[in-house]
């Protein structure tokens, strides 16, 4: 069985027996991503990727109305709109790239990035796999990850939870983890605030010993052992692990009818 089939099979079991009813795994993930921004207030939510974007829009449309969201280019836009469509809402502000750096250095932003690798203390790699001098696989480069992580809250989204992503040690520290930040001194650690990691299987945070990655909840239909097996290092677990909460009926309606009527979410997470 491939990893993906395993996920699908688990979801099918969950659909029949769990509290989630006919809620899809992708919908669980959208809500889990939305929860990352709960309590953030009047800051910019910067989701990278489809399900985090749906989550940020859901958070603002429901429990976190003061968030600022961009159209993906240089405008802050009000309202709630569909993935893959232009933002129709009123423009609230102009946020060209230079202003993005002003914003993030001021700390008024919470980003959710997708790492190619992430380790036990939250170091994240989006740059290259292998030796940096001659990578086995060149990816994007560090982008803004070093600056994001030492300046403002950061969360991560992993669409396929697997040992290849959750590694003992990342090949290149782009997003700064708690151990690296602590070792680099007070200026690196002052605003380091890794919030949560949402995957297709579970929600995790850095509440383990010395800010180690900890299992917070498993999505309906996912066994704790499945998450442990898909993680390439020791995962902190405090007692019984609850299930990730399902969407409320109002959230489900927003996801299905307003934010993602085309069902793009199912292309990122199956089941």
């Amino acid at each position, binding site marked *: 069985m491939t990893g993906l089939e395993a996920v699908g099979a688990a979801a099918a079991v969950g659909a029949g027996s769990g509290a989630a009813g006919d809620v899809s795994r992708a919908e669980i993930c959208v809500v889990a991503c939305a929860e990352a921004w709960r309590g953030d207030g009047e800051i910019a939510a910067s989701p990278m990727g489809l399900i985090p974007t749906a989550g940020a829009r859901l958070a603002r449309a429901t429990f976190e109305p003061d968030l600022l969201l961009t159209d993906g280019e*240089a405008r802050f836009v009000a309202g709630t709109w569909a993935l893959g469509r232009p933002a129709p809402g009123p423009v609230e502000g102009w946020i060209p*790239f230079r202003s993005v750096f002003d914003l993030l250095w001021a700390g008024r932003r919470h980003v959710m990035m997708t790492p190619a690798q992430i380790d036990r203390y939250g170091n994240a790699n989006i740059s290259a796999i292998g030796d940096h001098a001659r990578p086995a696989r060149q990816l994007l*480069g560090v982008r803004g990850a*070093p600056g994001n992580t030492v300046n403002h809250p950061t969360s991560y989204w992993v669409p396929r939870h697997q040992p290849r992503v959750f590694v003992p040690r990342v090949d290149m520290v782009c997003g700064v983890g708690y151990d690296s930040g602590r070792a680099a*001194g007070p200026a*690196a650690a002052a605003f380091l605030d890794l919030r949560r990691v949402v995957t297709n299987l579970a929600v995790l945070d850095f509440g383990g010993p010395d800010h180690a990655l900890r299992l917070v909840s498993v999505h309906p239909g996912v066994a704790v052992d499945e998450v442990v097996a898909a993680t390439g290092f020791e995962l902190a677990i405090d007692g019984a692990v609850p299930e990730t909460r399902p969407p409320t009926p109002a959230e489900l309606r927003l996801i299905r009818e307003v934010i993602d009527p085309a069902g793009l979410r199912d292309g990122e997470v199956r089941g």
Partner: protein
Amino acid sequence: MLRWLKLRGAVDDGTAVADKWMSEDDVVARLRSGMTIGIGGWGSRRKPMSLVRAILRSDVRDLTVVSYGGPDVGLLCAAGKIRRLVYAFVSLDSISLEPHFQAARQRAAIEVTEYDEGMLQWALYAASCRLPFLPCRAGLGSDVLTVNPELRTVRSPYADGTELVAVPALPLDAALVHLNRADATGNGQFLGDDLYFDDLFCTAAEHAYVSCERIVPTSELAAGGLPRLRVHRWMVAGVVEAPNGAHFTSCAPDYDRDEGFQRAYVAAARDPAEWSRFAARYLSGDEHAYQAAVAAQRAAALGAGTLGAGTLGAGTLGAGTLGAGTLGAEASA
């Protein structure tokens, strides 16, 4: 030719402002092997591609290229023009990874200085301000400091004593940027939502060259709104009129990214034989030949043959009009 004469700075209003109108090849004639060259735009957005293509045709090499990288970096990698790349990322935006850049990195064909995006801004800003460095939090705790061992930290001289990254100034020998409009004296105008860091590239450079979709009389610039006039003639050594010059990257609002062409570029770049064919078709001639080949491909894709090379121009070459699937299918066939 009359339009050309009327647009020359000295003719426009009778004053003797320096006239900087030149061709792509004039710009490249001023570049030398071994120079440090900054390229404006961001990813696959508003890149000075006609100037990059002119570099491909030249014997200039061993360049240190500084870029928020897109296909500018990819093409220069493929042509072996880059000795060192200074970057935070290289991406085609709608296609996340740049195949030529990946290939060059994976065979260690280029030296690299990989910075955080904000560090790169600071490096250009320090050079613009003639400062040796600017302090920065970004980079601390990350492997940016490991893979760039020449980077130093600096301690605040004030009571806080904070230790920060001292981002060294990155002065450029030349900068290349593409804007929507400019006058012949070098006043540039961006019409899209984002200037990116084009003004910083210009001010960090000894000589900056602006290509643009259309050169207009100075008197037309202010009508677009003062905040769009961020590139001034004191920053600029040369102006090139390059309609569709950012192709296949976006140049909003004049045109969108040519997604079909970009897909064909990526498909070709992943196979040496396909790349040879692609290069022969699009990159073997001058800029006029390139634009004619693009227009011919577009006309063929539309199946109507209505867009001949004679209609070439920014307005008629909306990227969105290209049958996106056609090019990709052909290139991968």
